[in-house]
C-alpha cells in the first residue's frame, strides 16, 4: 500500500525522512502550562467548556505521578516537547488543497494511492492538525460522519458532547489527562443505525518536527446494528532526540453493532508511544482491536473492551515486534461487566537483536457477570539469546460461573526449524522469515489483504537488520 521513491537499505527505517518546517502556520513554545493549553484552545476557537475541560485535565496531569510499571518513562522530559505544531491553516477536502510539501510526504507514504484503490474515506494528520479529510459521497448520504475531531466539535457540537470523554475520562491515567489537556486532531466517526461501511476508513498520522508531541483524539460511535472498520497507520522521521505520541481513542459500539479497529504502528525508534484505547460494547455488539506494533522506542498500549450488556463480545489481536533498542509493552484488557459475554485475546510477540516485548493483559469479571467465557493466548518468539520476552497476565474473577482459559508459550526460532527448512534448499534468511510469518499467521489472516501484505512486508524489513 505504500510506494517509495527509493528502496530502503537493509534494516533501514524507510520513513525516517523529514520535511522543512519553513512556512509553518504556528508552533507553540516548548513546555506545558495553563498558558499553552489556553493558547491551543484559543487558536482552535473552541467553546468555553472545552477550554475548561482542557485546563482541568492539565491539573490532573500535573497531580498524577508518572507510571512506574511497564516501560521506562523516566527519560521523558515533558518540558522539552512542542505540544502544538500547526503546519497548515486548513483541512483539505481534496489532495490539491494540501500544501505541496505535505502532500509529497503522503504520496511517499502511499496514502492517496491507497485511498483510490481500497478505502472508503481517509484522514491524514500532519503534526498536530488534520490536513486532509475525505469520505465517499455515498456514505455521506447515508449519514456516516467521518471528520477530524476538531471539526466535529464545531460541526456536530451536540453529538460530540454526548459521547466525549465518556469512555476515558481525563482522570483515567496520567497520559489520558495529558491528551485531554492538549489534544489536537484525530478522527470522529459516527455510523447511523443499520449502516454497514463495508470498505475501511483510514487515518494516517505523521510527526515531522523534532521533539514533537502528537496528541490526537479519536471518538467512534457505531450506532445500533451498524458496522465500521477503521484503520490507522503512523510514521515519523528518525531523530536523535525523542518525540512523544500519546493518543486517546474512545469507541462506543451500540446494540448489535460491530466495530473493528486496526492499527499498524510503525513510528521511528525515537518515539515514545503511550496510548489509551478503550471501547464499550453493548448488547450483542462486537468490538475487535487488531493492534500491530512494529516501531517506536517504547510502546505502552493495552486496547480494552468493556462488555456492558449481555451478548457483547470483545476481541483483541495483538502483534508486536521489538528490535534493537525497542520495548513493546502491549496486550489488552477485557472487563466483563455483564453476564453472557465472551472475549478473546491473542497476542503474538517477536523479539530480535536485544529487543524486548512484554504481554500485559487483564481479564476482569464483575460479580454479577455470570456465564462468561474468555480465552487468552499469548505466544512469544525470540530470535536470539539477547532478546527478551515477559508475560504479565492478570485475572480478576469475581464470579464462579465462568469459563476462563489462558495459554502462554515462549519459543525460540530453533536451530531445528531452520535446519529443517534449509535442508529443503531454503536459505537461512528466507527460512527465518517463513518461521516468523507462520508465527503471526493467525493474526495476519484476520487482516484485509492490503494490510496483511503491509504487515508482512514491515516485519520482513525488520528481520533484515536491526532497525535504526
Amino acid at each position, binding site marked *: 500500500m505504500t510506494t517509495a521513491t527509493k528502496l530502503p537499505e537493509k534494516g533501514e527505517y524507510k520513513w525516517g525522512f523529514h520535511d522543512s518546517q519553513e512556512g509553518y502556520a504556528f508552533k507553540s513554545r516548548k513546555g506545558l502550562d495553563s498558558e499553552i493549553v489556553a493558547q491551543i484552545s484559543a487558536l482552535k476557537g473552541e467553546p468555553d467548556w472545552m477550554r475548561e475541560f482542557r485546563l482541568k485535565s492539565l491539573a490532573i496531569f500535573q497531580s498524577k505521578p508518572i507510571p512506574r510499571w511497564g516501560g521506562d518513562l523516566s527519560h521523558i522530559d515533558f518540558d522539552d516537547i512542542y505540544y502544538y505544531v500547526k503546519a497548515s491553516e486548513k483541512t483539505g477536502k481534496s489532495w490539491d488543497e494540501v500544501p505541496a510539501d505535505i502532500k509529497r510526504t503522503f504520496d511517499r507514504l502511499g496514502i492517496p494511492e491507497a485511498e483510490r484503490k481500497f478505502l472508503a474515506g481517509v484522514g491524514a494528520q500532519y503534526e498536530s492538525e488534520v490536513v486532509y479529510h475525505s469520505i465517499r459521497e455515498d456514505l455521506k448520504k447515508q449519514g456516516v460522519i467521518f471528520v477530524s475531531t476538531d471539526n466535529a466539535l464545531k460541526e456536530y457540537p451536540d453529538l460530540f458532547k454526548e459521547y466525549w470523554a465518556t469512555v476515558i475520562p481525563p482522570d483515567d491515567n496520567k497520559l489520558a489527562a495529558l491528551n485531554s489537556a492538549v489534544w489536537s486532531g484525530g478522527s470522529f466517526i459516527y455510523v447511523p443505525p443499520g449502516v454497514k461501511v463495508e470498505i475501511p476508513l483510514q487515518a494516517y498520522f505523521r510527526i515531522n518536527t523534532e521533539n514533537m508531541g502528537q496528541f490526537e483524539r479519536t471518538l467512534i460511535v457505531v450506532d445500533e446494528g451498524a458496522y465500521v472498520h477503521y484503520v490507522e497507520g503512523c510514521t515519523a522521521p528518525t531523530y536523535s532526540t525523542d518525540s512523544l505520541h500519546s493518543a486517546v481513542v474512545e469507541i462506543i459500539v451500540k446494540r448489535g453493532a460491530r466495530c473493528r479497529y486496526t492499527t499498524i504502528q510503525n513510528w521511528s525508534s525515537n518515539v515514545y508511544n503511550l496510548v489509551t484505547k478503550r471501547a464499550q460494547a453493548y448488547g450483542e455488539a462486537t468490538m475487535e482491536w487488531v493492534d500491530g506494533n512494529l516501531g517506536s522506542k517504547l510502546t505502552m498500549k493495552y486496547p480494552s473492551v468493556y462488555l456492558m450488556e449481555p451478548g457483547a463480545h470483545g476481541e483483541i489481536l495483538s502483534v508486536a515486534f521489538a528490535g534493537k533498542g525497542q520495548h513493546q509493552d502491549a496486550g489488552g484488557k477485557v472487563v466483563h461487566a455483564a453476564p453472557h459475554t465472551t472475549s478473546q485475546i491473542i497476542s503474538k510477540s517477536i523479539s530480535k537483536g536485544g529487543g524486548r516485548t512484554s504481554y500485559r493483559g487483564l481479564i476482569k469479571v464483575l460479580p454479577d457477570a455470570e456465564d462468561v467465557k474468555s480465552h487468552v493466548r499469548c505466544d512469544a518468539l525470540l530470535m536470539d539469546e539477547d532478546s527478551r520476552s515477559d508475560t504479565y497476565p492478570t485475572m480478576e474473577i469475581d464470579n464462579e460461573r465462568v469459563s476462563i482459559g489462558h495459554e502462554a508459550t515462549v519459543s525460540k526460532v530453533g536451530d531445528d526449524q531452520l535446519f529443517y527448512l534449509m535442508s529443503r534448499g531454503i536459505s537461512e534468511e*528466507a527460512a527465518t522469515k517463513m518461521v516468523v510469518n507462520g508465527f503471526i499467521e493467525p493474526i495476519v489472516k484476520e487482516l484485509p489483504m492490503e494490510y496483511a501484505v503491509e504487515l508482512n512486508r514491515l516485519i520482513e524489513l525488520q528481520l533484515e537488520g536491526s532497525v535504526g
Partner: protein
Amino acid sequence: MTPSSGNGTAPLLQIEALHVSVEGKEILKGVNLIVRQGEVHAVMGPNGSGKSTLANTIMGHPKYQVTGGDIRYLGQSIVGLKADQRARQGVFLAFQYPTAIPGVTMVNFLRHALNAVRGQEVPVKDFRNLLRDKMTLLKVDRSFSARYVNEGFSGGEKKRAEMLQMAVLEPKLAVLDETDSGLDIDALKTVAEGINTLLNPAQGILLITHYQRILNYVKPHFVHVLAQGNILKSGGAELALELEAKGYDWILKEAAALPQGVSQ
C-alpha cells in the same frame, strides 16, 4: 549385484575417514562409505551407534562438527556448505523427527522449497500439477497441502510428508533417517512403495534403519553395520537377514578381535 555406476565418474557420495563430534563428544570415528548412482545402501545398527549423526552430518546440521575426514558429493567436498546449499545440489534428508513449522502451509513450504532447489520460480500452475501428481502417486490426501507443516501430524503422516517432499524435490542423493520407525505395517508398505516408485538410476539412497523389516519391501544393494561410531561390517542384502536372526553382538565381538584402527 552392483548396478553399473558409470565407470570413471565420481561416486554420488564418498565419505572418507569421517570424524564427527557433537558438543565436544566424538560420535563418528572414521566412517568410510561410497554410494553410487542407482544404488540403495542400508545402514543398520544398534541405538546410539551414530546413525542419525551420519544422516545429519551429510545434510549439514550445524550442531554436528566434522573434525576429520571428508564428505564428497559428485567429487566435490561439501563439508563447508550450509544445508540449503547442499539441498540445492541435490542432497535430501528425510527426517526421523520432522519439525513442525506452525502457520506455514505444506503447499507454501513445498513451493518455496521447489523454487529454491530448481533455482528459478516454477510457474504456479506447473507447481500445482506437479504436486497433484506426486500426491496421487504417494496416495497422499489432498487436504494435506493446506495443513501447517508437520503440525499435529501423526507419525505416519509425518513420514508420508517427508516422502512427498522427496517426490517433489527429486534429489539425487536421498538420506532416509529411520523413515520406517514408528510406522504400522500399512504405513510402512506405503513408505516403501514410495521409495521404490521414486528410485531411479541416477539416484542413490542411503536408508538408515534400526529394523530389518523395511528391507522386506525395499531391496538394498548393500547393507552396512554402524556401531561404536564406525562401520564394522558391510555386505549384501543377506547381511540384514543375518542381523535379524543373530542381533548385533557377534559383529561387536568380531570387531573387538581385530587390531585397532581396522574397521572394514
